[in-house]
């Protein structure tokens, strides 16, 4: 088994920054990532993107290039195309590259597996032609592809960015449908001082909105009861706004209700999590250095709580410094000296977050879908069935597995987990913390029997070798 000083899962801003900081202090680092090139989702393919596409994606995207280039440090081993499928509290990760499984262990481990888009269970969301807005952005970043007749719907600042990028690419969305209401904006007002402190982020957002206005993209606000219509594929998005039901014909529906931490890895490790009511999601518990209650295991980036790319990068650097000090490569006084400006910038970058969280809550359908809507796509379990489980005495998601198999498919609840917890919590009059979350089992991504077999010392491949 390979062993390194700092093992990092995820080559997004947090993982790349932690790697650079730790390598700079003399640590041997391994960086596992599922994609072929570094960058994570936010800076996806930033090292390989052609200039024309980089212009469409904007300066926030191009800012990731120096980070990705920093991985050239000889102390950093970047292992691309690696699917991590088992992570143990002894800081060992089992992963597969090109159908070959291997083990690697870190004296310190950083889980920087980032965020995933909050699934948006509305009627018709399983039809072909419906995808998340982030998926459309991935197609743009990696392949330069965009859907032509698309409606973009949901809530959150990222919605504006993706719509603005579509405008720049010459294929503006047919409409921008927002579930955000005036009430949400009013509720965010008390957080205005923070927003003013984070004026840079606010200015960016207002710039995207202005771009959309100039391009003449119709905007529907306070939308309710979203549904995708169509026979066999998406043909229109129906919604109620301003007291009127309307239907927007389209070929593609891009849904987005914000991003949430991807907690598959931290749940697999059995780390304690808490429900963050402001962000409506679970976050792993950690201290200001990103260290979790399990010794030597850190979290950083959006996987530790949504903060965006800059916050992720800063929190990654802090983990790099902490790991270097813990392994005796950096004097604690020096660590604190280098960390002080990072903590200051971090506080400034986080200041805008409470305003954004309050102003862009997930729409009411997201965490309390209508009875007929499918919540668990893998096993085709509807919200109504989960509510029926609760009426029969089901208190939590793991018991719901026995009742109706929600969360037992290949995604292990990545899609339905938050909705199942929220529905059960609402139905039982419990908090999400009391309701709990799916127990995540290895492998977190499916792995073939042959790959596991080849790892065994007595395995068939070893014998024939």
């Amino acid at each position, binding site marked *: 088994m390979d062993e390194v000083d700092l093992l990092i899962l995820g080559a997004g801003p947090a993982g790349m920054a932690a790697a650079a900081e730790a390598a700079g202090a003399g640590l041997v680092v391994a960086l596992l990532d599922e994609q072929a090139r570094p960058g994570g989702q936010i800076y996806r393919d930033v090292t390989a993107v052609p200039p024309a596409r980089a212009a469409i994606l904007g300066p926030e995207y191009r800012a990731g290039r120096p980070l990705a280039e920093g991985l050239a440090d000889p102390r950093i081993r970047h292992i691309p195309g690696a699917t991590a499928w088992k992570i143990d509290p002894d800081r060992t990760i089992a992963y597969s590259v090109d159908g070959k499984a291997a083990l690697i262990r870190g004296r310190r481990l950083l889980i920087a597996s980032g965020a995933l888009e909050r699934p948006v269970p509305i009627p018709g969301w399983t039809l072909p032609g419906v995808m998340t807005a982030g998926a459309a952005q991935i197609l743009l970043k990696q392949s330069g592809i965009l859907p032509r007749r698309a409606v973009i719907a949901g809530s959150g600042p990222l919605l504006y960015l993706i719509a603005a990028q579509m405008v720049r690419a010459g294929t503006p969305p047919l409409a921008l449908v927002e579930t955000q209401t005036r009430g949400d904006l009013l509720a965010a007002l008390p957080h205005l001082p923070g927003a003013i402190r984070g004026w840079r982020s606010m200015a960016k957002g207002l710039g995207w909105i202005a771009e959309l206005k100039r391009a003449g993209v119709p905007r529907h606000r306070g939308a309710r009861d979203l549904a995708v219509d169509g026979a066999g594929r998406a043909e229109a998005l129906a919604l109620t706004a301003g007291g009127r039901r309307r239907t927007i014909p389209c070929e593609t529906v891009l849904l987005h209700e914000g991003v949430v931490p991807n907690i598959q890895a931290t749940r697999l490790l059995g780390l304690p999590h808490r429900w963050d009511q402001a962000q409506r999601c679970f976050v792993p518990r950690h201290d200001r250095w990103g260290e979790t209650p399990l010794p030597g295991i850190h979290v950083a980036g959006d996987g530790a709580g949504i903060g965006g790319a800059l916050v992720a990068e800063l929190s990654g650097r802090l983990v790099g410094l902490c790991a270097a000090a813990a392994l005796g490569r950096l004097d604690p006084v020096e660590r604190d000296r280098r960390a002080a400006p990072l903590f200051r910038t971090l506080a400034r970058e986080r200041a805008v977050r409470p305003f954004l969280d309050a102003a862009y809550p997930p729409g009411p359908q997201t965490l309390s879908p209508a009875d007929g809507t499918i919540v668990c796509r893998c096993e085709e379990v509807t919200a109504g069935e989960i509510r029926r489980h609760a009426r029969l*005495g089901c208190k939590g998601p793991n018991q719901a597995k026995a009742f109706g198999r929600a969360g037992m498919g290949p995604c292990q609840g990545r899609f339905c987990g938050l909705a199942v917890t929220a529905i059960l919590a609402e139905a039982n009059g419990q908090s999400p913390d009391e309701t709990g979350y799916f127990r995540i089992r290895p*492998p977190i991504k499916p792995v073939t029997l042959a790959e596991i077999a080849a790892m065994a010392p*007595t395995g068939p491949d070893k014998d024939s070798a």
Partner: protein
Amino acid sequence: MTHFSARSLLKNALSGHKDWPAQWPESQPKAEYDVVIVGAGGHGLGAAYYLASQHGITNVAVIDKGWLGGGNTGRNTTIIRSNYLYDESARLYDHALDLWDNLSQELNYNVMYSRRGVMMLAHSVHDEQSFQRHIHSNRLNGVDNCWLTPAEAKAFCPPLDITARRRFPVVGAALQRRAGTARHDAVAWGYARGAAARGVDIIQNCPVTAIRRGPDGAVTGVETAKGFIRAKKVAVSAAGSTSVVLQSAGLRMPLESYPLQALVSEPVKPCFPCVVMSNTVHAYISQSDKGELVIGSGTDQYVSYSQRGGLPLIEHTVAAICEVFPMFRRMRMLRKWGGIVDVTPDRSPILGKLPVKGLYVNCGWGTGGFKATPGAGHLLAWTVAKDEPHPINAPFTLERFTTGRLIDEAAAAAVAH
């Protein structure tokens, strides 16, 4: 209790299956019961059902720290068989098999018992000799078991690779045709429904924290998260937690708790007609009704309460499965999990009275408790009701570990099964 019949199914189908009533109520504990059973798995619920249905004792509570059927009942590989070597074991497991035969009809609840046959592969001369001995012994005890040549084994289970070049060559197999599988949750639900309909209280999410004894040493009741519950008879049927619960009554049990692992693959169309086991590599495999391959592995080498288990065991099991069934190599594993099994020194259960008045135990089933569910429930109910063991479970005492009258299935099978 709703009676399930073709008529009631048809009637509810017309209304979209929305009007089925709850099959058991959510009970709160009373101050006192005649019998308290600790552990609402298949065994504990089965005991409550038989206490009510066969012995007329209905003032019974089954208490569980989680939800019913949420322990090992809900996390095993659902294999049912009775081809054990020793007379005592053969009688015990065959008693259970007899009850499985009519369980769906008796409970009016489909437990999906499928007699698809369990085939145990022999990979060496030693295996063959041991299996032949098992077969003869089983037949003398009236338990069905027969020997198959490699060609016959392949005919029974076509995915099997019997070519001799294999690391684990198949030199033959022992087949028990009456053996098979059942749906694990349905067994717990069926017994819970039957017991609740007869007046048994099933109290979930209520950990038992201690067993209390009076000045004369006899059991007086149990302390729980919902308060003290009086009972003159307490039966503990708590699998891996048995030793902890009984410690509070001043008893030290000869049990060790190990994680036992299993895994499932992605679902595929029906392709695997039976259950296949290999004791040599300690692997077992079957296909669920959903289409997933269910693969069982061995217990860890060390005691633990962690419900995860080590990767090397899974590697070893899966390597053997890929050898014997090459067509499964490219199937994807979706999930692996562990259950905590309580193992005795001779790998046979302890089922009977304890040296404390009013205290009974059903534990030590190791990795094979599911197959015994109806038998264990039936015999535990008998023992509690009559305050003496049934002839079938009479040899399975706690005292055998001091008298030396062991029922050494561990030595008989050369594996922890």
